[in-house]
Structure formats: structure tokens, C-alpha cells
């Protein structure tokens, strides 16, 4: 809201009359540090009336002297008029009071140029206080500058038009200017809304609507607006920068800031004042007229950012980075802080925090972000501080890779990556509380799965076979089975044949046994006739042993009386026959070495051997058949 004072002079007679009462009330209160403040517009037009005020924040004043006002530049139309103001407040038992005295002059500018109004002096509580000096620039000419007095009136007329007169678009309008018409995404644009007026504008209201394509931030301007004189189209307008917005485009393309409608209130003079109405309604001869003012829209061309590189933080502007670590040698469970400060201008609020890659073994916490940026006409300026807290849990040497921050430089129109230094940390063993923090059940801990991923592909050559060609149930398989079966049959046949042949040899020997025995006995008989007892017994023994060996398929060397009787018993030869056979051998061996009648004995032994062989042959042959 704007308050524009009328060029009216207070009637200070009443004030003067009331002054003693004020003094009476506020005298006991101590005075504060006293200053005398001069105030006047910085810029005026020739012929324009303006106010020069001196304010002192005390009421115990005397001896006010104004400085020497350059008489060729300014004419004092009126003054000084004095006004006093006091306020007294009591909050929670504490009393504060302030009071001030204001001396007001009405001046009129006479010629162009820059002039200085020297300091004024005043005596406050007995001390001399001087004010600041003022510099006033006089430029342009107030309109209808017919004569000084007339000019004043004319200007007043100009501003305070009569009720009912229309206010045209050239009397009161708003201009919009954008600092840039073509920007990159996220690059800030400054929008300035400037009010130009020829009428007495007292209030103005208008808000920037929420825009889809923009992130909008308003620059705070002083609540108190002061007009400046500016020439536009040959007329001197009172202008004021009404509002400024910094816009961060969030998408590319042609973005539009729509026209905004401001609601203004303009003061107009009411010439046909009914005195009674004026009296009862407090009518002052002025009425307020509402006026809608349309500020034009603005088109802004937004270029998309080039292909974003990996790790792009979203920052657009111009930045620098600084990293700090609080310590590089620490103990387990000691917290560690890395502070990354990004300073510069750009869309600081919309950036992602850069990533600090601590070893996974560290416990890490959320980034603490401190925003030390402020809004200026060129965007957000200042720094963002990111603090990364990590706690090492195990001793050892660790490496923290450099922090990288990638942003888009709007000046050089390319991406830039800022890289910090890398840190090497040495973590020593803490004060034995490692285990107490980690676990209660021993020093082993579970393996932490960091991520799940598929296993690697199978490399190397494979048997490339079509899906249908399985080995199972294939011809090859059947052939393999058949081959195995054939092998079995073959081996079976071979083994069997050998077994059969083996059996035949035994049989043949058994058959031959009788013949051999008979042959040997015949030879023995011949030896007996030749009366050669030694050779006879040898031949008879050979016949006996040889016979049983052949019959039983046992080599002669392995024969003994025991195994002969065993094997013969197996072959169902009766005990009598076996006994006879053994006796024949015994007798033969006995007679071989015994002295006596070898001839008679020879005959007897011959008979016994003959009988034993015949009997065994009979029994075995019988059992076989």
C-alpha cells in the first residue's frame, strides 16, 4: 500500500495549544539519543512543490535554525510549521515512550541542477545537534508551468482530477521488463513491474499468480515506496518500482508470464461537496476511485539444457566448491564431518547435494543442509553448506574419493565439474567400546548384503546341439545299450567256453588215469619179474599217486593222505575203499625201504595196489554215471 501525502499544511495552532499538556505528561521520562533528521525527495521538477522536514526525537527542543537554503534554486513557500508527536506504551509493566517534533517547510524548485541544502541545527536538552545535509536534483519541468502559484495549483489539479473524470491508460500504467528474454532452463530472469502515474495513486494491489513453468521468488522491496520523476513520452511521470520477481524456468520452450491485473485506488477531487454531508461524513472533498490496471504479459524463450551428464546436480549458474574435513586421523566410533560449501549464483535451492562416497563400512547419516543464500536481482546468491556425518566402525585405512559437483555454467554455456581433493583416513582402535556398540554375542558379525544381483553369464564354448537332438533315447543311446548288451553276451560266451574247455581237460585226465595206472602197473609187474624191487616200488607208488592226482585233478606235489581222503569222500567213495587205497600207499612206502623178502612182498603190494585202483575207479565211475 502506498500513502501519498497531500500537499496540505497542518494547522499547527492547535498543536501549539496542546503542547504544554504533552510536556506535562512526558517530562519525567528520560530522553533518548537525539538526532535531527532532514528529509526531502531526491529528485524534483522545476516548479514542483515539495516538502522539507526536520524531525528530532525529543520535545525539549529550542533554537531551531535551518541551514542556508540556496535562494536561487528554491523558494520557501511556507514554513516552518511545527508538529509534535508522542507515543507512550506499557508492555508487561515496561514503559516505553517516544516523542518527536517535526519542522516542515514547503519549498518550490526554481531551476534545473543539483543543489545542496546545508544542515540545520537545534538545541536539544542544552546540546547543539545538527542534521544531515540534503542533495536535491532538480530536473524537468512540472507541467502547466505558467507561473509559480498557478503552477502549483495546476499540478495539484493535475493530480487531483475532479470526480468522474476518466483515468486513461496513459495516465496510469505499469511497465514490465525482463532482464533476459532468452535463457536456459533454471537460469534466473528478473521481472520488474514499474508503475507510471500522473494521478494521485494511493493504493495498489496485485500479485503474481502461481506459474507452472516457473519457480518464482519475490524480491522484498521496502514497504514505503517513494516516487521518482521520470520522463516518458514527453511527460513527467511519477514512477516507482512496484515489485520484482526472480523467475527460475522449470521447463524449456516458450513460457509466458500472463498479464497481471493490479487494483489501484486513485484520489479524485469532489467539487460539488455538500457542506452538511462533508460535515457528517467527514467528507474532505476527495473521493477514492478504484481503477484496474493491466500489466502486460511477457514471453520468455527457454532453451533446454544440453544433454545432462551423469551426476548432474541440477545446478545452473556459476559456482565454486570448497570441502573441509574436520580430521583425518580418528578412532573408531568417532564421528567425522566433511563439509562441502558451494558458493555462487544460481538456482541454489533446487540443487541436489553432492555425493560423498564413504566406505560402506561407515555408518552414514542424512546430509545436513544449511542454506545461506539470499535472493538478489541476479538470482539466488550465497552459499549452500552440506555437512556429511559418518562414523567409522572398524579400524584401518580408508579412502574417501573426491567429491564431484557438476553444474551448468550459464556464461560459458557448458557443463562444468568441480572436484575436491580426496581424503585418506586413518582410523585407530577406539577405547575398547567397539564391541559394546557392535554386538553383544561375540565379535563376529553377519555379512551384510549390499545388493542383490544376478550371477554372471556362462562363458566358454558349449556343445551346440539342437533342442531335438538329445542323447537320451537317440539312436546313439540305443546303440550304446546294444553295444553293452553285446559286450555282456560276448564276455559270457567267452568265459563259458573257457570253463567248458577247462572241464574237458579234467575229464580227459580222469579218463586217462586208468590207462596210465594200468601202464605203470604193467611196467611194475615187469620189474617184479626182473627182480628189481627198488624200481618196482617206485613205479607202483607213482602209479598210485598219479592215478589219484589225475582222477581228482590235483597236481601230484599237492597231494597228501589227508586231502586225498577228503576229496575222495566228497566224491562219494566209501571209507573202506579209501582206507584200502591209503593202506596200499603206506605198505608200498614201508616195503620200499624194509628189509626181508622183497620178492614175496612185491607180489602182495602189487595185488593191493591193483585192487585199490580198481575199486576207486569203479566207485567214481559209478557215481559219475
Amino acid at each position: 500500500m502506498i500513502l501519498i501525502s497531500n500537499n496540505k499544511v497542518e494547522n499547527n495552532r492547535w498543536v501549539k495549544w496542546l503542547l504544554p499538556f504533552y510536556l506535562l505528561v512526558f517530562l519525567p521520562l528520560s530522553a533518548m539519543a537525539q538526532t535531527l533528521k532532514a528529509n526531502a525527495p531526491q529528485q524534483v521538477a522545476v516548479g514542483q512543490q515539495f516538502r522539507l522536514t526536520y524531525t528530532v526525537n525529543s520535545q525539549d527542543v529550542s533554537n531551531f535554525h535551518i541551514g542556508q537554503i540556496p535562494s536561487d534554486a528554491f523558494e520557501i513557500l511556507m514554513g516552518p510549521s511545527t508538529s509534535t508527536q508522542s507515543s507512550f506504551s506499557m508492555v508487561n509493566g515496561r514503559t516505553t515512550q517516544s516523542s518527536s517534533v517535526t519542522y516542515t517547510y514547503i519549498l518550490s524548485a526554481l531551476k534545473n541542477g543539483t543543489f545542496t541544502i546545508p544542515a540545520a541545527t537545534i538545541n536539544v536538552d542544552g546540546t547543539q545537534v545538527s542534521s544531515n545535509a540534503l542533495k536535491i536534483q532538480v530536473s524537468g519541468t512540472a507541467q502547466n508551468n505558467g507561473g509559480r502559484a498557478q503552477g502549483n495549483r495546476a499540478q495539484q489539479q493535475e493530480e487531483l482530477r475532479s470526480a468522474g473524470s476518466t483515468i486513461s491508460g496513459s495516465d496510469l500504467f505499469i511497465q514490465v521488463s525482463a532482464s533476459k528474454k532468452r535463457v536456459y532452463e533454471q537460469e534466473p530472469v528478473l521481472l520488474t513491474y514499474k508503475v507510471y502515474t500522473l494521478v494521485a495513486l494511493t493504493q495498489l494491489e496485485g500479485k503474481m499468480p502461481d506459474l507452472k513453468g516457473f519457480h518464482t521468488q519475490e524480491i522484498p522491496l521496502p514497504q514505503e515506496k517513494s516516487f521518482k520523476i521520470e520522463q516518458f513520452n514527453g511527460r513527467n511521470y511519477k514512477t516507482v518500482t512496484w515489485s520484482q520477481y526472480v523467475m527460475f524456468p522449470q521447463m524449456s520452450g516458450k513460457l509466458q508470464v500472463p498479464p497481471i491485473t493490479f487494483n489501484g485506488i486513485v484520489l479524485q477531487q469532489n467539487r460539488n461537496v455538500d457542506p452538511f454531508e462533508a460535515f457528517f461524513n467527514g467528507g474532505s472533498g476527495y473521493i477514492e476511485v478504484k481503477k484496474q490496471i493491466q500489466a502486460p504479459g511477457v514471453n520468455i524463450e527457454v532453451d533446454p539444457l544440453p544433454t545432462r551428464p551423469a551426476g548432474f546436480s541440477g545446478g545452473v549458474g556459476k559456482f565454486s566448491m570448497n570441502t573441509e574435513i574436520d580430521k583425518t586421523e580418528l578412532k573408531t566410533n568417532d564421528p567425522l564431518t566433511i563439509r562441502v560449501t558451494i558458493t555462487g549464483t544460481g538456482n541454489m535451492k533446487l540443487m541436489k547435494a553432492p555425493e560423498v562416497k564413504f566406505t560402506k563400512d561407515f555408518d552414514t547419516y542424512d546430509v545436513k543442509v544449511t542454506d545461506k543464500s539470499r535472493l538478489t536481482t541476479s538470482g539466488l546468491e550465497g552459499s549452500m553448506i552440506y555437512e556429511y556425518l559418518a562414523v567409522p566402525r572398524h579400524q584401518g585405512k580408508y579412502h574417501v574419493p573426491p567429491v564431484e559437483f557438476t553444474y551448468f555454467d550459464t556464461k560459458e554455456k557448458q557443463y562444468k565439474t568441480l572436484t575436491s581433493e580426496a581424503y585418506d583416513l586413518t582410523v585407530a582402535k577406539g577405547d575398547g567400546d567397539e564391541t559394546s556398540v557392535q554386538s553383544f554375542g561375540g565379535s563376529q558379525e553377519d555379512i551384510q548384503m549390499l545388493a542383490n544381483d544376478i550371477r554372471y553369464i556362462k562363458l566358454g564354448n558349449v556343445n551346440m546341439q539342437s533342442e531335438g537332438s538329445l542323447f537320451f533315447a537317440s539312436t546313439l543311446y540305443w546303440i550304446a545299450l546294444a553295444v553293452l548288451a553285446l559286450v555282456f553276451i560276448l564276455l559270457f560266451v567267452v568265459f563259458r567256453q573257457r570253463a567248458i574247455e577247462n572241464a574237458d581237460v579234467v575229464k580227459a585226465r580222469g579218463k586217462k588215469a586208468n590207462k596210465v595206472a594200468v601202464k605203470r602197473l604193467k611196467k611194475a609187474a615187469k620189474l617184479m619179474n626182473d627182480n628189481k624191487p627198488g624200481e618196482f616200488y617206485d613205479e607202483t607208488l607213482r602209479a598210485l599217486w598219479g592215478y589219484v592226482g589225475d582222477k581228482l585233478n590235483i597236481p601230484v606235489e599237492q597231494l597228501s593222505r589227508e586231502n586225498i581222503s577228503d576229496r575222495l569222500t566228497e566224491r562219494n567213495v566209501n571209507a573202506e575203499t579209501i582206507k584200502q587205497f591209503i593202506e596200499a600207499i603206506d605198505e608200498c612206502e614201508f616195503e620200499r625201504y624194509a628189509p626181508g623178502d622183497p620178492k614175496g612182498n612185491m607180489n602182495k603190494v602189487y595185488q593191493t595196489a591193483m585192487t585199490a585202483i580198481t575199486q576207486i575207479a569203479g566207485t567214481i565211475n559209478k557215481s559219475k554215471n
Partner: protein
Amino acid sequence: MKRLIIIISLFNFYLVTAMAVTKADADSSYVNENYQQAISQYEELIKEGGANAELYYNLGNAYYRMDDITHAVLNYERAQLLSPGDEDIRFNLQLARSKTVDKIVPQSEFFLVTWYLSIVNRLSIDGWAYASLGFLALAIILALVYLFSSPIWLRKVGFFGCGIMVLCFVLANVFAWQQKQMVDHRDGAIIIESAVTVKSTPAQNGTDLFILHEGTKVSVLDNSIGDWCEIRVPDGKQGWVEVKQIEII
């Protein structure tokens, strides 16, 4: 026998040398993270008749890297069908399955069936085939030992050993046959459309029973009706879907 083996190995060698270059190419595409190319190369290899558990497995991996979970599951399933005992395939299939949308709790199976299947799936079809040949050879040796050895204990070992080996031979053949049946009569299928409404009847106007999402494995019960087939979800739900919405494993 020996000559036969030599002939077989020569035959295999010939096949390997004929195609090895492309498999290596596909592998190197995968290694260089050129997954799209790896996919097309593996698919070409398979199309050329090299259907092989390892190729399907690698193809599944490439799809997984491209975030195409549905096709990854499909190819892992195919790989597992051909090589049911492979640990890597099982692991990756499980991981890929866990990333599909539908969470399905399969119906509980009688524990003996589970055991039986786990034994059947211990070896591949050809694995069982070779095992059966081995068992048969052992059985023959033991039979000969029984028939032609004279010590009694050796004959006993030969007799019982031969019996057991014959039993193993028969079982190995049964297992191989059973797996071959599974491969030949594939009733598994994967939902390939992102969301499929399962109908109560084989028609568009049938009642909507439930919705399945891509990557879910179903078994096909009846595909005799042209465009529609009846499916069963592992948790027992049944319904009809359009043939184009699924792909047989």
C-alpha cells in the same frame, strides 16, 4: 566302443568350431555391456538351432540387464527346463521372479513328490542317460563276477550289486524319460502382457476373474481352442486367457 566315442567327440568338435565364434561374440557384447546387441546375438544363436541351457541363461542375463524382467524370467525358465540341476540358473531365476509384480504362494506339495522331483532334477536328461549307461556297464561287470568267480563272497557281491545296478539303470531311464516328457510337452508359460485379465470363459465377454501381471508363470491346461487357452496359476486359480498374452516356455 572306443571308436564310437572318438566319432562322437569328433562330431561335437566339428559343431563347436562351426559356431563358437558367434557365441564368443555374444559373450563379448555382454561383457562390454552392449546388452541390446548381446540379446540379438544370443537369439540368433538359439534360432540357428543351438537351443542350449547356457545360451538361454546368458540371454536371460542380458534381458535382466536391460530391465526386461519378463523376458529374463522366460529365458531362465527355458534354461532351467533344459538343465534343471544348474545352481546359477536357479539362483538367477529366483532373483528375477522376485522382481515380478504378482506374488504367488504356490500350493503345498506332498513332501515325497518334492523329494522325488528334486532327485529327478538333480541331473539333466542326458546326464541321466549317461548315468544309466554307467549303471548298465557296472551291472554287466557284476553279473560276470557272479557267474564266473569261484569264491562265495565275491559271487554274493556280484549278485546283489548286479541287482542294485539294474534297478539304478531302470530308474535313471525313468527319470530321463520323465524329464524328456516335461521338455516335449511344455505346459509352462509366462505372461508377457503387462496386465492380463483372466476370464471365466474363453470369450471377451466372460466374467473377469483376476488380473495377472507380466512375468508370472502359469501352466497351460488346455490349448485346443484356437485363440484362448486355459491356464492355472501355481496357487491353484484357473481361468482363460488369450494365447497372444502368454508365451510358452
